[in-house]
């Protein structure tokens, strides 16, 4: 079995759970607590990555420069990472400044069928001699064969690995097994998995992914992250070590960080809640949860109906604008439609 690399997205995906309001001191405390614990990289930034601070997804409390600079100053041993989705950020406005701020590891993401939109950015970063991985988001929406085709494109652009993002937490163990093994058998580069916990399977799915050849597991402390939360890294380390899989993690230090830094960072418990289960079932991007709740309140409609309708419309990550439109539409709907069981079932098909 390959050596495991843990990617720590606490300060990136976690930002989704607090409306992108992670502050300077929190970044300092987290980086100090986690530097040198053995995670491969600590990824920092807005929930949707570089360039995503917006009305569409939510403004960050800090600028990209402030977040990266703060983390950089407090990381000596662990690499600083950043995420970007082309279409949100650009080379000139975001990647070049991030390189100047000292980012060493980049993950470049796109919806799982659109790998060719990452070509310019992966190639640019490889030319700059940075460590670069491709990310296929919402992977549950494509077949294993299609995902392999897309991952191969990223490999040809120079990506050093491809990470499957279970952005909706919609994975069954069988899906993970089939998809990861298909990629592992045919790619020459690393394969990674980024689980979400909508159906309580994040850690189990990470384990399955590893057994099928994935050597990158991307998670967060306490599962702090979008929607139902992420794959809890403390759990992964506990489970893997018990299974005699070496993680290279200073476990006590990681647990200390979990206990001392996380309660203040999270603000609230990350256990499963009903709305996240609905969003997972409907196959909608986990990070839509807070904006959906907000829109439900604003337009006095049921947040669950919004999720089912979004699922029906097959929206992808980044389409937050549809939330308001759907909520506004539902608010004009009188009886017979949403709330009706047939309507919900139809949405799931």
């Amino acid at each position, binding site marked *: 079995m390959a050596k495991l690399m843990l990617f720590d997205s606490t300060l990136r995906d976690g930002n989704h759970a607090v409306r992108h309001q992670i502050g300077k001191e929190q970044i300092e405390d987290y980086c100090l607590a986690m530097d040198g614990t053995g995670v491969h990289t600590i990824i920092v930034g807005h929930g949707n990555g570089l360039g995503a601070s*917006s*009305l*569409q997804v939510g403004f960050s409390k800090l600028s990209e420069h402030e977040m990266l600079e703060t983390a950089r100053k407090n990381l000596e041993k662990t690499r600083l990472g950043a995420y970007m989705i*082309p*279409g*949100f*950020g*650009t*080379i*000139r*406005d975001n990647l070049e400044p991030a390189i100047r701020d000292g980012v060493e590891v980049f993950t470049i993401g*796109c*919806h799982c*069928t*659109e790998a*060719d*939109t990452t*070509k*310019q*950015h992966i190639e640019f970063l490889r030319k700059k001699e940075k460590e670069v991985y491709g990310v296929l988001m919402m992977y549950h*929406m494509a077949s294993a064969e299609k995902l392999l085709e897309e991952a191969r494109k990223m490999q040809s652009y120079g990506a050093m690995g491809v990470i499957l993002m279970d952005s909706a937490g919609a994975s069954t163990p069988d899906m993970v097994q089939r998809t990861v093994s298909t990629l592992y058998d045919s790619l020459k580069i690393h394969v990674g998995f980024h689980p979400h916990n909508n159906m309580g399977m994040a850690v189990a799915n990470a384990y399955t992914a590893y057994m099928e050849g994935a050597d990158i597991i991307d998670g967060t402390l306490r599962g702090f992250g979008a929607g139902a939360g992420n794959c809890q890294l403390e759990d992964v380390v506990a489970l893997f070590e018990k299974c005699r899989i070496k993680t290279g993690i200073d476990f006590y230090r990681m647990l200390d960080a979990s206990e001392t830094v996380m309660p203040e960072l999270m603000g609230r418990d990350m256990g499963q809640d009903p709305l996240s289960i609905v969003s997972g079932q409907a196959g909608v991007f986990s990070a839509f949860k807070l904006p959906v709740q*907000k*829109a439900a309140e*604003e337009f006095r409609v049921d947040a669950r109906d919004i999720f089912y309708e979004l699922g029906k*419309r*097959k*929206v*992808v990550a*980044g*389409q*937050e*604008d*549809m939330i*308001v*439109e759907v909520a*506004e539409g539902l608010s004009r709907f009188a009886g017979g439609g949403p709330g009706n069981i047939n309507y919900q079932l139809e949405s799931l098909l």
Partner: protein
Amino acid sequence: MERRKVKAGIIGTGNIGTDILMKLRRSDILECGIFAGRNPDSPGIQRAREMGVPVSADSIHAIEENPDCCEIVFDATSAGVHAINAPVLKRLNKFAIDLTPAHVGKFCVPALNMEECLKECNVNMITCGGQATIPIVQAIAEVHPDTRYIEIVATIASRSAGPGTRDNIDEFTQTTRDALTEFTGIKNTKAIIILNPAEPPITMHNTIYALIDHPDMEALQKKVRQAEAKIRKYVPGYKIVMEPVFENGRVTVSLQVTGLGDFLPKYSGNLDIINCAAIEIAENYARRKVSGGADG
């Protein structure tokens, strides 16, 4: 008496180029003089051949070798290729309409700056997202010059984004944002581009957000409707689907663009919005030539 038609060349035989070709058939003032790409077997070239249009696999060299084949050139290649083509077209004294996000020439939105653009020798059509949202953004900025921030989100069907668009996603995003600022004078702008692969494909959808301290919603709604009517003159499928509303502290407007279904099906409103705009400026240029204006 039948009026003289002005010849236009098209370089690039992908989605954009082929859709322009189909649209030129409807024009009473333009005709296609050359349809040039690099692949002699591309579906676009085949279609042009069937239509009896002169074709070439020699790209811009076809125009260099036979400069009389056209007066106007639609460049539907890629940002990198247009940067190389632009000086050649200038030397040949062609009116270049750039459909890539190269931004060599002046940004052009026919509803807003047609007259100024007709004085140029190279105009840039920005991007589909830019063509769809800038007139609305400009209307908002006109009512509220105090707008603090503008953001647009353009969502298009994956199937309508050809390899050129995908290879240029970075320029696409950057150029759209740069144009938002140039047309409104508002420094703080953002453009977000989303590709959605759903089947059946989704219709092109755009949302505009604005941060305004005390928005005059009535004035905004009126101005936005006026802008819509102006664009509908050259893009019939352009439709506001959510009038300006004030929600969560922001002004939000949504619009859809349904295409004419000339080359790709009707969901590809993104092709229509940029191509109809390109044809609008080309026809105006041609009309002046024919009526003996300028150097005609």
